[in-house]
Structures are given as C-alpha cells and as structure tokens.
C-alpha cells in the first residue's frame, strides 16, 4: 500500500506541477463566479438558480472529464515515452501496483477537485437569493420547486397485452392488418397497437372520468404539500384553449368501501390551458397511512372534447422526498462516478496507445457516452431492416458504454428532482463496478505483459 500511495502522490504532483490540472482549476475558479453573475435564465430568481446550477455543474463536469482523460493518459504515456518507467518499473513494485497507484492518484485528485468546485456551485446557489429582494411568494415557490428533491411517481402502464393480442388476431383474420400496416414486421405492429391501446386508457370522453392509483407515496414531511403535475392533450381544440377539470385526490378506497374518512379527499375544480404543464398543490395529509393515493379526474360537460393525458408525461405525482443538500451531494457523486470511469478508460487507452491516439480514443468514447441516449433513440426511427443491423452492431457497442446523458445530475437538480439512493447505487454498480472495473482489469493485463521499453509509435 505504501508503494501504491507513493505512486499516487507522484501522479498528483505531476498533474499539478506540469500545470495540466492548474489550467483547468484556474479556468473553473474564474468561470464559476462569473457564471453566478451572468447566468440569468428567464430573469426570475428561480430561472437564475436553475441556469447557474445547470451551467455550473455541466462546466465542472465537462472540464473535469477532460482533465481526467488527459491526466490519466499522460501519466502513463509520458512515463513510457520519457522513460521514467525504466527507473520505476525496476524497483520492487508490481506493474499492477504501479497502475493502481496512478489510478488512485487521479481519483484522489478528482475527489478533491469535485468537492472544491461543487462546493463553490453549492455556495453560490445557497447564497444567491440573499442578494435579491425576492417576495415571500417567490421564495416559497423556489423552496417548493428548486430547493427540494422531489420524487416523481408516474402511473403504472396499464396491462393491455391481452387486448392487443385479441385485436391483432382479429385484424389478421379479417385481412385488415396488411392494409393498415403494409410494410411493418409483426413485432413493430404489436408495438404500435400496444401504444394505441395504452393511449385509449389515458383518454376520457366528456362526462367520463379517469382514476389513477399510486402505492408507496412517502413524502419527507407529512405537513408539506404534494404536487400533481399534469398536461392535457385534446381531440378537438377548445375555443378558449382551456380545459375544465374536476379533480379529487385522496384515499378513494374509503369512498368505495363506505368507511369513515380517516384522511380527507381533496377536491379541486380548475381550468388549465392545453399542452402545458400545470401543478396542483395538495396537502400531504391526503395520503393514506400505508402510502396509498388515488387521483381522479372528471371531464366535466363544460368541455366538448375528449381529454387525453399523454403517455410520456401526462400525469405525475411529485413530493419532496429529500433535502436539496443531500440531493446535491448525490448529484456530485454522479459526476465523480463518471470521472472514475474516464480515469480507468484513460489508463486502458494509455496502456497500449501513444498519447495523442489515446486522447482521441478516450474523447470519442466520452462524447459517444454523452449522446448515447440520443444515438439509441435515433435507431428506433430507422426502417426495420436497417434498425436491426444497427441495433446489433453499433447499438450493442453504445449500450456497453455508460450513458452519461441519462445520469446527468443537472437533469435532476434543475427541476428539483430526487436522485434516489437506489439509482445512485445502480449507477455505481454499473458505471464503476462493472464498466470501469472491466476497463481497469484489461488495462492491468495489457500493462503487465507489454514491453515497457518498447515505444509505441
């Protein structure tokens, strides 16, 4: 361990004294406070906060990612190209200890830098409202929507498999299948039909209603509010663009079974514009003791159209599940996991490539990782045969890489969404425990068996 640590300390010294890290550190130290002043967003205090968190963390994450790639590649390739490795590898240290020492150095450096810069971002975010003469109302809104870690529950997708199978068979028997979907393979047709059926379940005609049931709604503080976030879609555009809805939120089982009301049912009549996100604030005491909550919507006769709640984002329950601070810490950990993966990637690349090639290799992987969600989604849009070719070749490769965009902390912190410990654990296991670990093992094997005195050109 003493030897590994000696190498780690040397790696940190190298990063700092060769001015690689220094440039990034100075850049961030200058840019972060500047961002705090210039990031205004939509002009509101909430917009300011959101923009700053978004830019600040993204910038920190991007620059530290680049720094990690450069340092982890440089520390190996420069040792080999400038041949310090001759004097180091001939000392009583195993090759794997040498590599682990380098990794430890990069990780320790990253932990220190992430802590420093996330600390700056956090400090600005916490103290920023103090500089503005914000009204009580604004502060309350920010508390509810920004300084929070809200968990979101979406209704479970209804089980439509049986209906879809029935429909499919009927269409096939009657020969309408070829007519309706001329070019699609059977699995794609099934997918289309499933979507159609599910959407049917989320639409309601005039005078009719919908009820969604949720289990396990557990707000941090039962005296606070929960929020129903929803978006209307319509079959026919209403003349004034508004949809009138009667909502009832609470433990509906009490109504169904005629029990005494232990928890209240919250009624709300409101008019909301179509295709716009709206939130209903409801006191958290409407939730049953066992975490059950039902949300009912009645399409009142004042509307003259079918109302649809889109499948993707039509309805969601939001409640404060944790504090902003601990959510922010988890967001910072997400960045750190990404950096650990990149450090292992850099070590692997450097173990068999020269400096410029290794850097290029890592950057390609890094940027693929940051757009992997988009890449995978775009495959879905391709025609059937092309889709299959891509999904089994490039798609498979992309799926092996970590999805940086999916686990981007700003995507959670800006809308005040909860980064659950369970998700953090999953990312840790996948990105660090499996993906980074595999890279590290490969790097150890390559590095242990290669001829260190042979220069890679």
């Amino acid at each position: 361990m003493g030897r590994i640590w000696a190498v780690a300390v040397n790696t940190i010294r190298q990063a700092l004294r060769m001015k690689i890290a220094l440039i990034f550190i100075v850049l961030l130290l200058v840019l972060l406070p500047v961002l705090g002043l210039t990031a205004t967003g939509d002009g509101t205090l909430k917009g300011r906060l959101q923009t700053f968190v978004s830019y600040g963390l993204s910038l920190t994450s991007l620059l530290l990612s680049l720094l990690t790639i450069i340092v982890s590649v440089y520390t190996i390739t420069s040792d080999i190209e400038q041949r310090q490795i001759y004097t180091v590898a001939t000392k009583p240290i195993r090759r794997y200890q040498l590599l682990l020492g380098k990794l430890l150095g990069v990780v320790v450096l990253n932990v220190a830098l992430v802590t420093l810069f996330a600390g700056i971002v956090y400090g600005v975010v916490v103290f920023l409202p103090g500089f503005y003469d914000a009204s009580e109302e604004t502060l309350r809104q920010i508390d509810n929507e920004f300084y929070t870690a809200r968990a979101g529950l979406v209704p479970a997708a209804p089980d439509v498999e049986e209906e879809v199978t029935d429909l499919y068979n009927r269409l096939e028997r009657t020969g309408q299948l070829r007519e309706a979907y001329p070019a699609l393979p059977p699995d794609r047709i099934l997918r289309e039909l499933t979507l159609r059926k599910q959407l049917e379940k989320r639409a309601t005609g005039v005078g009719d209603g919908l009820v969604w049931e949720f289990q396990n709604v557990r707000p941090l503080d039962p005296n606070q509010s929960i929020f129903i976030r929803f978006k209307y879609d319509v079959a026919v555009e209403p003349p004034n663009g508004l949809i009138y809805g009667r909502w009832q939120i609470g433990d509906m089982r009490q109504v169904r079974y005629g029990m005494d009301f232990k928890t209240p049912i919250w009624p709300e009549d409101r008019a909301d514009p179509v295709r716009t996100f709206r939130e209903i604030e409801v006191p958290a005491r409407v939730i049953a003791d066992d975490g059950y909550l039902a949300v009912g919507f009645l399409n009142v006769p004042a509307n003259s159209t079918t109302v649809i709640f889109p499948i993707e984002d039509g309805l969601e329950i939001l409640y404060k599940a944790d504090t902003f601070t601990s959510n922010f810490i988890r967001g910072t950990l997400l960045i750190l996991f990404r950096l650990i993966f990149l450090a292992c990637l850099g070590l692997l690349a450097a173990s068999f490539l020269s400096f410029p090639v290794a850097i290029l290799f890592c950057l390609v992987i890094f940027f693929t990782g940051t757009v992997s969600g988009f890449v995978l989604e775009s495959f879905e849009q391709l025609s059937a045969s092309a889709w299959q070719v891509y999904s089994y070749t490039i798609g498979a490769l992309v799926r092996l890489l970590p999805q940086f965009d999916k686990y981007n902390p700003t995507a959670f912190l800006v809308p005040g969404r909860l980064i659950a410990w369970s998700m953090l654990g999953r990312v840790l296991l996948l990105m660090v425990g499996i993906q980074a670990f595999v890279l590290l093992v490969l790097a150890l094997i390559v590095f242990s068996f290669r001829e260190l005195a042979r220069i890679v050109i």
Partner: protein
Amino acid sequence: MDYAIETISLTKVFSDWWGRAKAYAVDDLNLQIRYNEVYGLLGPNGSGKTTTIKMLLGLLHPTKGHALLLGGDGTDPKINRRIGFLPEESYLYRFLNARETLDFYGRLFGLAPNVRKMRIEALLEMVGLRAVASRPVGMYSKGMARRIGLAQALINDPDLLILDEPTTGLDPIGTRQIKDLIIKLAERGKTILLCSHLLADVEDVCDRIAILYGGRIQAEGQVRELLQQSGRRQIVTSDVSDEAVNKIRGILESENAECEITSPMEKLETFFINTVVEAQQQARPTSGAVSTTQIGEFLMAEKSQAGILDKLVSAPVSEDKPAESPATQRIQPSEVPAPEPDRNLLGELTKSTPPAATEQVGPAKPAPSEVAEPQDRKVRQGVLDALTGKTPPATTERPHEGPKDEEAAHG
C-alpha cells in the same frame, strides 16, 4: 555455481509489424557474472548492451533464452529489492526536486521513514547536490542529472548495481568520482555490471570485460589478460642520469632486445583534474562551467564530511553475506594494475583541497607510484558504515554531523 547475473542463450529479435525478423539486437548471449565482480560490457553503439540490460530487468521480453538476476527473475520484487539500476540517461521526473526524487524511489523500496531520510541526506551529500536539492530535476545540467540518477540507483544499498553508461555527460572529475565509487562499492562486496563504450572507464575499474558486437560476445576475459602484451616488458624508473640509461640500454642490447626510452606521459585526466583543483584553490572565477565548480565543492565537502561513501555501502562481505563468500572469487584489486594509480589520484584530490594543504598539489602530481590509499579509505569509511548501521569509525572526526546520522542509523 551461482552467478549474480546469468543469461542462457539470450536472444532478442526486433521484428517489423508483420512479424518478420528485422534485427538481431542480442544473439544467443551467454553471460556469467560472478558475485562481487565488476564486469564491463563493452561495445560500439547498437551492439546490444542496453537491450541486454533491458531484458535482464524485464523491460523487454527475450525472444528466446533466459536471463537470471541474483538467481531469480528481474521482474520479481524480491530480486528488485537488491538491485540498483542507472539507465543510459537519467530518466527522472522533471517536476520533482532532488530530495523528492530520492524520497519517491525510497518509498518504492518501502524504506522506513528514518532510514529513508538518512540515506537521502547522505546520498545528496555524496553526489554533491545538497546545495541544489530543492531545485526541480528538470532544471539540472546533464552532469547533475547523472549524479541524482546515480543516487537513485544507490537508495536501497543494492547488492547488484547495473550501470548503463554511468559517465556520459560528466566532466573528467565527475567521471573520476564515479569510477572511484565503483571500485569502493566492489570492495564492499557489491557486484557491478558496467556498460559503456568509453574504454578508459572500463579499463580502470573492471575485473572482467566482454566486448559485444552484433549482439554476440566477441571477446571476454580479465582485463589484465586481455591487455597484457606477452613478450614485452616495461620498466619505470625515477629520474635517473643519462649514464644509467645508457648502461641499461647496453645490457638490453647485449640480450638482443629492442628498447625504447622516453619520459612517461602524464595521463590527460590526471593533468586536467590537477589543473582544475589548482584553479579552484586560487578562487579563479569560471565562466559558466557550473558543474566544474560544483564538483569542486563536492570534493571539498567530501573532505569535511568525512566518509560519506562508507555510510552508503554495507560493510565487508564476510559479515553481511556469509552465503556469498564461497561464491565470491573476487579478483584482488591489487592484481589488476589499472586501479592502483587511480586510487592515488583520489588521494591527491582529497588531500589537495583546502583547507588541507595547498603545497601538496605540487609534489602529488608526478608521483603516481605512491599509494595514498589508507588515507582515502579512512575518509570514506564512516559514511558507508553509518548507512548500513555499522558504527562509522570516521564519525568522530565530524562531531557536528555524527550524532544526527547515528541516531537515524539506529532508529
């Protein structure tokens, strides 16, 4: 029989991208280097010296054959622990200063903090870099980098020292110093593999040499055997009268022998060192030749800090390594003619530095036959011993340094 270094038909073929053999860097090399031997590997550029060393240390993989270091594998940490290696250039971290460099390598050997500290200070003293120890190594001149490289190779008190071109970049005084160090280390029971194309270096210090060309040994043997011209004799006298010379010539001619009588030439090296030392004593400013003055300081320091070398190397073989004694068939240094005058030279140098005695420079110059060895040895004994935990006989001579070193050595 055990060897400190043994290679068994060691071969290295460098091949191109398609796997076709391009060059035989080392070709079926069989080296057998005994314990406690100073072995010189000679050869022109590209003859395979460095490739051999890299294979010994596991930096390159042999295409064929085996390389054994101290009876084991050169990549085994147990073996590495006992090896010191100075590569052909001092490949060091430019961003570390001399002290940090030695500390880093000391940590790689897992040396205890107090031992590490003591050895670092003693080594810095020995190679004369204490004054610049906090300057980044990247700013060092080539000679200074070579010195810190050497110090790095000695940090673990190695049993086997592999030196690849140790004197490149050093001026004659530094070269002299390293050669002297090699002899001293050999006397302390170390095995040294010296790789060089500077013939004078090898000739002065090696017991046995091998000449490599095209990756093969072309000649191998004891330096004296290889160089001695059988059928010729040399007589060296003090300044005698022409009359006596003619008499000798007469005797030789009666024996029908050819003879040539001249005044012996001083070696340029000796002349150079004496000139520089003289200049230093007159405090003549030098224009830019920084390393020269520093070497001067080093020499002076060695005088006052008596016996640093002694500190650095473990004491006699008999006590430390009984197992090796039978295997040790060291050629007595006195049998080899070359080292003798060199040791005298060092004696002169150390004697002639101030405040010792300025007048000694003069008489010392033309007296290569007088052995100044005892004094020289006394000067260095203390440091060598202190570094390995033996009570240095010389520590009493330098009371201001003694207690600190002793404390560290016992800790």
